[in-house]
Structures are given as C-alpha cells and as structure tokens.
C-alpha cells in the first residue's frame, strides 16, 4: 500500500524534496545539540522545560483530536464523516510520532530512554504517558491499516476491528489526560497545579486539532480533488466552535480563581503571562495576540453566515489554531517556571538551533502526513496532482 506514495507529479515531489531539506537542516542542528549538550537551547537551571516540551504537549492534543471524527462516525453513525475518519487517523499517527521526537530531542541522554522500559516506574506519570502514547500509535496504525485495506479490496472491514476502534476512543482521551497529569500533579508549580488542566487540554485539543483538519481538507480539495463534502466540514466547524468556547471558559475559570483568591503564587504566573513581572514581558504580546485571535475565531464561528462562508471559515480556523498554539505551545509550559520556586523571574527564549530542530521535527510530521494522505487518497481512487 505504501508504494503508492512513490507515485506523484512534479508538484508532489517538489514538496517532498523541500521537506527533506528542512528535515536535513533540523537533523544537522540536532547533531550539534547532541554533541555539545542542551546548553545550545535557551533552557536554564530555572526554566528547565521549554519549546520542545511545549510542542510535545500541543501535539498530543492534535493526536487526541482524531477522536472527534472517529467518535461521531463509529458511535453515532454520522455518515458525513465517512470520508474523514481516515484523515483523522492519518493526522494522529504523524502527531504522535512528532510527540515522541520532541521528547527524544529534549532528553539529556536520549539513548537511555530504554531505561523507562528497563525500570518501569508505576508512580511516574511519564511512564504512563509513554504507555498511553505508544498504545495510541499502535491502535491508530492497526485501525487505519485494516480499514483502508478493506476499502481497497472493496470488502467490509473484519468484525474484530470494531472493538479496537471503540478502545481507541477512550484511549485518545487518556493520552491528553495523562499528559495533563504530568503537569497538574506537581505541588512545586502552582501554575500547573489545577484540576482544570486536563479538561482544558482536551477542550483546546478538540478545537485546534479539528481546525487543523479543516485546513488540511481545504488543501486536499484544492490540490488533490478530494472532497469530504460541505456537510462534514460544517459539522466539524460546529464542534470546533463548542470546544473553543469550553477552552476559553476554562481559561476564564483559571483567571477568576487566581485573581479573586489573591494567592500570590497563583496570580504571579498569570501576571507574568498577561502583564509581565519585574519588567520582564517576553510572553505578553503573544498572549494578547492569542486572546485577540480567540475572540476573532469565536465571532467568525458563532455567526452561521460567516461559518458557512468558506473564506471566513478558513480565517477562523487559522486564527483559532494560532491562538491555541500560542497559549499551549508557547505560554503554558515555560510560565510554570516563571517565577521560579525561589521567586526569581528568569525568562526563557528559544535559541536558533532549538527552533531549527523543532522545525525539523515538524518537517518530519509534514512529510508523514503527505505520504499517508497520498496513500489514503490513492486507495480511495482519487488522482492527486
């Protein structure tokens, strides 16, 4: 089936080669980091997690969001999503692989990751996150492979795959819940120590993931003549809207609890995010842009006229995706460390090598999506250019 990825026109190959170059550059920077150490990043004794772990967290959400197309199709028989489930699954697989790569590049001793399995530690959330992500990858590989193979042979999928698909639904929820537990279980970091962390992660994931899927669907329609249908896109857009409303609601809950209770160790982090602390304001512009984009996307999605207008929907999805990426992929992780446990305000800025390594990982994700979507579409009998 995978050989179908080797058939393509000029535009396809130009894109693939471009991605390979991006990946190659990222890999060279990684070799540099591997040789010298994580000192090439902007991380420090005070801010020990940064861009890599934030991307990991964001992408776990993208991976989990596949459930948004799988669940309605398999549990509620939402026929419109029929042409979309494979796209969701084939987005989840590259997303999980990117998650794993971001963890890998963040490790001080990456080749010792095997120790997580040699000395399984049940009281560590990181152990469970490894199990959850690995299992989710396996489930999605099995499900997409079997369903696509059946489709290719024009036979109904085997009966045993149904329970596997059902299992993948709570499993998707679990990966982002356990990822939230990585943070929300730490007494040392009041910014993360919140019961609303997991619900908020899920809400933002179910908004940003399907928004990305809508963007990919638009791209596929334009460049590959693959149309999932207007009804499916509109249904997805409504889900994106409600997930985003929940996400914003949860953020407002956080702000109320922090600022009404007036507990300094809770307010300090939010002050740093939105106003800056001790004159240090690196994240402030990004957070207000995020808030502004959230409002724009909600207005465009809540109004039926703009939601049904495809250009408006396109803008709404881009705005929403960037808004959540800024909040989760930029602000959420590092703010847990600012101020530090000793009350120091030490800022963090990702360095050039750090960004290039991250771009390289995203390049690998983009390449995987390209290949997998190409395979899916070839099986579905469309002829992409």
């Amino acid at each position, binding site marked *: 089936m995978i050989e179908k990825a080797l058939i393509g026109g000029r535009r396809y190959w130009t894109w693939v080669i471009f991605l390979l170059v991006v990946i190659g550059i990222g890999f060279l920077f990684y070799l540099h980091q591997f040789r010298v150490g994580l000192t090439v990043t902007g991380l420090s004794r005070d801010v020990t997690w940064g861009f890599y772990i934030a991307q990991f967290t964001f992408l776990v959400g993208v991976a989990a969001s596949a459930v948004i197309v799988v669940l309605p199709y398999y549990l509620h028989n939402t026929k419109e999503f029929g042409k979309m489930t494979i796209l969701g699954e084939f987005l989840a697989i590259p997303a999980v692989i990117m998650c794993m790569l971001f963890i890998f590049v963040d490790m001080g001793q990456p080749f010792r*990751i095997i120790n997580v399995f040699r*000395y399984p530690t049940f009281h560590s959330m990181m152990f469970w996150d490894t199990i959850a992500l690995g299992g989710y990858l396996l489930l999605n590989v099995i499900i997409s492979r079997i369903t696509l193979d059946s489709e290719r042979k024009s036979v109904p999928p085997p009966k045993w795959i149904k329970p596997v698909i059902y299992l993948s639904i709570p499993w998707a929820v679990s990966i982002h819940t356990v990822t939230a537990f990585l943070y929300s279980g730490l007494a040392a970091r009041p910014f993360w120590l919140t019961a609303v962390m997991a619900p908020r992660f899920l809400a933002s994931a179910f908004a940003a993931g399907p928004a990305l899927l809508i963007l990919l669907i638009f791209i596929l329609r334009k460049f590959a003549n693959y149309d999932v249908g207007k009804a499916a896109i509109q249904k997805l857009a409504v889900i994106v809207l409600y997930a985003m409303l929940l996400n914003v609601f949860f953020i407002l809950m956080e702000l109320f609890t922090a600022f009404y209770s007036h507990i300094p160790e809770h307010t300090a982090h939010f002050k740093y995010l939105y106003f800056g602390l001790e004159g240090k304001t690196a994240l402030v512009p990004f957070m207000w842009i995020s808030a502004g984009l959230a409002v724009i996307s909600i207005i465009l999605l809540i109004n039926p006229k703009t939601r049904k207008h495809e250009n408006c929907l396109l803008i709404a999805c881009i705005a929403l995706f960037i808004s959540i990426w800024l909040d989760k992929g930029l602000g959420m992780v590092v703010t847990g460390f600012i101020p530090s*446990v000793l009350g120091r305000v030490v800022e963090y800025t990702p360095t050039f090598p750090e960004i290039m390594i991250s771009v390289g990982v995203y390049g690998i994700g983009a390449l995987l999506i390209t290949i997998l979507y190409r395979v899916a579409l070839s099986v579905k009998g469309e002829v992409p250019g």
Partner: protein
Amino acid sequence: MSVDRRKFLKLSGLSALALTGGKPAGLFAPAERRQNHSSGETQNGKRWAMVVDLRKCVREKGCTKCIDACHDVHNVPKFDNTKDEIKWIWKENYENAFEAEGDEFVKEGLREMPVPLLCNHCDNPPCVRVCPTKATWKREDGIVMMDWHRCIGCRYCMAACPYGSRSFNWRDPRPFIKNIHEEFPTRMRGVVEKCTFCDERLARGQLPACVEACNAKALVFGDLEDPESEVRRLLHDNFSIRRKPALGTNPEVYYIV
C-alpha cells in the same frame, strides 16, 4: 551549649552500644573516626537530618566554606554564567528561601539574610515520585539518592522539586572543574545531579563535607531517630522552620532562625 560535641558523641555512642549489643561503634572521637571504617555514627542512621543554625551562620559574613568544600570534593563544575550553573549547596536571601516577600516589617536585615540551601532529603520526595526510571530514589535512612548512570535527563525531577535543589548538566562539566578529585566520579552532559548528604563520606565514617567545613558549627548533621542526637536536642531546644512545609514533602533540613 550544655554538652560539648565530644561528650555528646560519646553519649550517642554509648546508646548505640546498648542498642547494637556491645559493638564498640560510636566510641571513637571524630578525629579517629575518620580513619575508622567500621564506625557506626555515620553509618547506622535511620533518619538523617540537618539542622542549620542561622544565628551562627550569619555571623560569618560572606563565608562560602560549606559551598567550596562540597563543590570541591564532588567535582562540581564552575561556570561563569547562571544558565549552565550547577550547585549542590548555595546561599539565597531569606525572603527567597522562605517565600517571605510579603513580610514588610521584620527584623532588620532578615529579608536579605543569606541562607544556605541544599537538597532537603524530603521524607515524601516529589522528585522520586515523578522520576520515570528510578534514577532518583529514597534510601532506608532517608537520603534521596541519585544515579547519574541511569538518569535519562528528562528533568521531570527538576520540575517537581519545590526547592530548586537539582541541577542539570547542560554541557560537559569536566572542562569546568578546577581540580578533579579522582576518588569521586565526574558527571557527563545530560544528567541531573544534587546533594546526597555525602553518602560516600558517611559510608567511610565521615560527616558531610559542608558540616565538616563549617567553622561556625552552624551545620549539624545527625539521626533524628536517635533521641540523644545533637539534631534532636537542637530541635527540642530551639524554634525551627522548614521550607514550604505546607506542600507535605516533609523536608529533613531544619533552620533555626
């Protein structure tokens, strides 16, 4: 002090003798103890703890003897930037160490008073809970240990530690160590390290390096399970505080202010 150190050690030695059924363990004075590898005083502890007497510590203005001694024997590198910094024991202002930024009217100089900080060897250590490989673990005697050979460098323990007691080797530390002591291992880039209450010295019958180096005798190390120990006596006779007690970590480093 009502009991001097030598007398005290003898007393504790006698009680240890009674407990262990006649082994002449703690009877040696500190000087002899150092050469004696079978000494019980630093080996048979059940719950190690440290008491920092800030009243004595603050008298030695600008003193860094404990820091120098620790960092020297443990091959801790010295960087000229705070970003790569590694420290096992260091000094921090009182207001940062004890989250007392809000105290407006306090004893003069208290807020800026330097406080030595190190790993608290918590009874309920969050770092041990989160480590995915058991590279950091709690010993029976309460010491929170660190295995640099197993650590994968995920830095989850650093996120979990409420005291900032852990350091990460962002780069190869060896070129930044002034004089390498061969008897203690150096670390490689990409692993976490921290104070281990000098487990290697305790095993040899020695006190922790910082305790030994402190001229003011402001650092006192001992076994809290031993009712006759100096740490127990100090805590009994003085008002002491611990860092962030509300978090339930139960630090084993106590401060007399």
